[in-house]
């Protein structure tokens, strides 16, 4: 199939989508399917790997190769796939429970290794598929089925976590933002190495409105702080004490996503503790670092191509040998 002729329909599988009506996942799926033709990669070279949770179903709906894995293990499955194949575009779809709770270890290590996989973290701040328990991104005091008196545990900030895990590409976007979401996907696809994209995703059944301060047209216009490399960050200044803060009382700040030191990106990630007020949206960090196993994979492929029976015989008879006739 000539990549230039691809359309959105080429990425739509024949499976009936079965998320709840109004789920933010529909908007993300439409944006991803709409964006992929422009990547120019034939569908058979694309793989979606997912874990468990509502987001996990995503893999069935893309007409690419796909694996709906086990809870939290998507990044590990994808790491193995990437180790075997350097000719694929590998995407992991996960949720806040999948990525940050049961699969937290795999997430941080995939980022640390800089495995060439793009991780889409659908964050709805709730367990949806199991019908409404607190998640590791639920806010302190959140009342859910499992926390009827309010959650006593504070949440993760996924962007801060990813930066702490040495991620080379970290971004945040919003399910319904039809311009911004594809733009972030494009940048992630162009990034060599691991990418983490936190997508604020509304769960209309168990946590409706969690991101209204950003998704709502009027409030969103005020609260979205767009990060664009090389551009001044609107609504963010550096105070006399040297700290970044929200507001206008201080020196203007120009965004630099390519800074090797992650502390600037980390500072940005700490400007908002929860998505109910002004919140940075965009690419926090995008830096170059050696990609896990890229060179090694090529060397090994060459070695294997050259390994014939004689090479195997040599390996089998290494060391001291003796012959009995």
């Amino acid at each position, binding site marked *: 199939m000539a990549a230039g002729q691809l359309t959105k329909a080429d990425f739509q599988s024949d499976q009936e989508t079965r998320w709840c009506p109004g789920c933010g996942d529909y908007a993300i799926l439409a944006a991803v399917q709409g964006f992929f033709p422009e990547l120019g990669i034939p569908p058979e070279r694309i793989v979606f790997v997912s874990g468990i949770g509502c987001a996990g179903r995503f893999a069935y709906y893309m007409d690419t190769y796909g694996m709906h894995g086990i809870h939290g293990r998507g990044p590990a499955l994808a790491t193995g796939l990437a180790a075997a*194949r350097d000719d694929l575009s590998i995407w992991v779809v996960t949720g806040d429970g999948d990525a940050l709770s049961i699969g937290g270890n795999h997430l941080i290590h995939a980022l640390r290794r800089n495995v060439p996989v793009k991780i889409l973290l659908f964050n709805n701040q709730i367990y949806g598929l199991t019908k409404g328990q607190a998640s590791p991104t639920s806010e302190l005091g959140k009342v859910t089925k499992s926390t009827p008196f309010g959650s006593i545990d504070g949440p993760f900030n996924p962007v801060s976590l990813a930066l702490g895990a040495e991620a080379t590409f970290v971004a945040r976007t919003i399910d319904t933002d039809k311009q911004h979401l594809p733009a972030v996907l494009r940048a992630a696809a162009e990034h060599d190495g691991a990418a983490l994209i936190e997508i604020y995703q509304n769960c209309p059944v168990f946590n409706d409105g969690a991101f209204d301060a950003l998704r709502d047209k009027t409030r969103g216009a005020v609260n979205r702080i767009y990060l664009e490399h090389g551009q001044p960050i609107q609504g963010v200044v550096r105070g006399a004490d040297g700290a970044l803060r929200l507001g206008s009382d201080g020196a203007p700040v120009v965004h630099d996503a390519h800074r090797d030191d992650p502390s600037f990106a980390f500072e940005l990630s700490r400007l908002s503790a929860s998505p109910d007020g002004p919140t940075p949206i965009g690419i926090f960090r995008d830096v170059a670092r050696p990609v896990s196993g890229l060179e090694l994979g090529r060397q090994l492929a060459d070695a294997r191509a050259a390994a014939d*029976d004689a090479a195997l015989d040599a390996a*089998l008879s290494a060391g001291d040998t003796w012959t009995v006739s």
Partner: protein
Amino acid sequence: MKPSDRIGISQGVKATETRERVVVRMAGDSGDGMQLAGSRFTDATAVFGNDLATLPDFPAEIRAPAGTVAGVSAFQIHFASRDIHTPGDAPDVLVAMNPAALRANLGLMRRGATILVNEDAFSVRAVQKAGYSESPLEDGSLDGFTVKRVPMSSLTSAAVKELDGVSSRDAQKAKNLFALGVLSWLYDRPTDVTEKWIRGKFRGPVLDANLAAFRAGWSFGETSELIDVQVKVGRNPEVEPGTYRNINGTEATALGLVAASLKSGLPLVFGAYPITPASDLLHSLSRRQDLGVRTIQAEDEIAAASMALGASFGGALGVTCTSGPGLDLKTETIGLAVMLELPLVVIDVQRAGPSTGMPTKTEQSDLLQALYGRHGESPLPVLAASSPGQCFDAVYEAARIAITYRTPVILLSDLFLANSSEPWRIPSAGGLAAIDPRLRTTCDGTFLPYARDDRLARPWAVPGTPGLAHRVGGLEKADGTGAISYDGANHARMTELRAAKVDGIEVPDVEVEGDGDLLVLGWGSSFGTIRAGARRVRDRGGRVATAHLTHLRPLPANLGEVLRSFERVLVPEMNSGQLAHELRAQYLVDVESFCKVQGQPLLPSELEREIWQRVS
């Protein structure tokens, strides 16, 4: 040694005696280099042409306090002029480098055996540290043993003191080579193999010191009146023609995996997390980049298995390796592999459990976990390796089944197999049966990812193949299409198909050796012990049959008939009777168990005793 044996010492020519087999055990502090000395002695013995079997016995602590019983490390070798199958039971000779080594190993020795001690190490303080109140060399506790007191430390120091640049520390560290030299003379081992190794391994003053210590030990054996007889153990004449090397289970497994990769044309992706005693396989394969092996040290056991499975999805031979506690964690991924019907080789180097158990001690207690330890109806093939060298064939067979039938396979090895060594007839690469992965590359009409061939295996279409893009996952599959299905009748059919595929795997019939009313049936690493025990019985006129299982699921088709053709069946195991349980369930045969869970391999003498209790 009887005085009458002490003949021919005049003019420096010592007496010799010929033995059919000898068991030597070397023991010292974990920093004394006993494993190194033992493996050098083993290589020389192998090259000489004896049959042999070895057993390293490590302490649990990496560096337990020096001189304590907890820190004793030992290496045992059994070598013979005929074929043998085990590292032997009671050693004929113990080399004890310090009082703790003597204390830790004396219980294994029969009265009359020889004990070579490093006399220099028996200071008052060292003796107390080992838990003795008085020196065992003086208190009469060694009466009945032939004790040879050799001042190894001071003789080593004397041998190296003239060498340039050799520190007293180098001298102390070389005393294991002195001991090796003494043993090499005592058993008439070729010295060139060892000297060549020393020259290849060390540089500068350390090379000089080790070489000097080894030669000094040899000369001591040759000249000292303490060592009054040289023991000859002739070559084993009953050996199949071929080229041999000495190999342990870990190396044989590594080579088997490399061979399976090259003979199937699939890249080997090996995911592992460090765990005793499986880590050595990761180390070994990590050095095989020259043959295209990709190893990944994963963040945990779960990831190690998942990485292997992810690689298999991409068209690689995905392999993961662990020991008991890690198998618990991999269970979830193995279940996914059952559902995905993709190749995955899982190697479990068993150790004593439950939980952390005894990580440096062997056991065969994961059999039922391998067979049944997953949620849902989750069948998979299970194999077990039977000897160090046989690990090569076992893992090659595991890979063949995994690839051919698109299924996870568990291969059970154990600590004893991983660390023990034996002569191994080197197979020729050209003689290994190629493994055809039959990757699906084309399709007429609609591609059905869960259609099945005559083996009930589904097509393996890897990403990158145009026209065959499909999705797999842990949810139940509709027969044929692989679409998600919650249909009850479909689930029943898929459950049957998954089981029928595994149970339809062709497995060679079990072969019975010998005859009689009693069958001794084993599995895994007890192969050698059972053969040796049965041979002792037969040598004394007893009648006993033996058989061994390498395929645990599916079991050989003739097994039921074999079991029913004997009046009694004895199943020796290093667990509480797991195979016996399985056989009773499968065949309603009243098998008897002989169980041992002491963290040590079964011994031929134990088998001999158990067999005699059941035959007349």
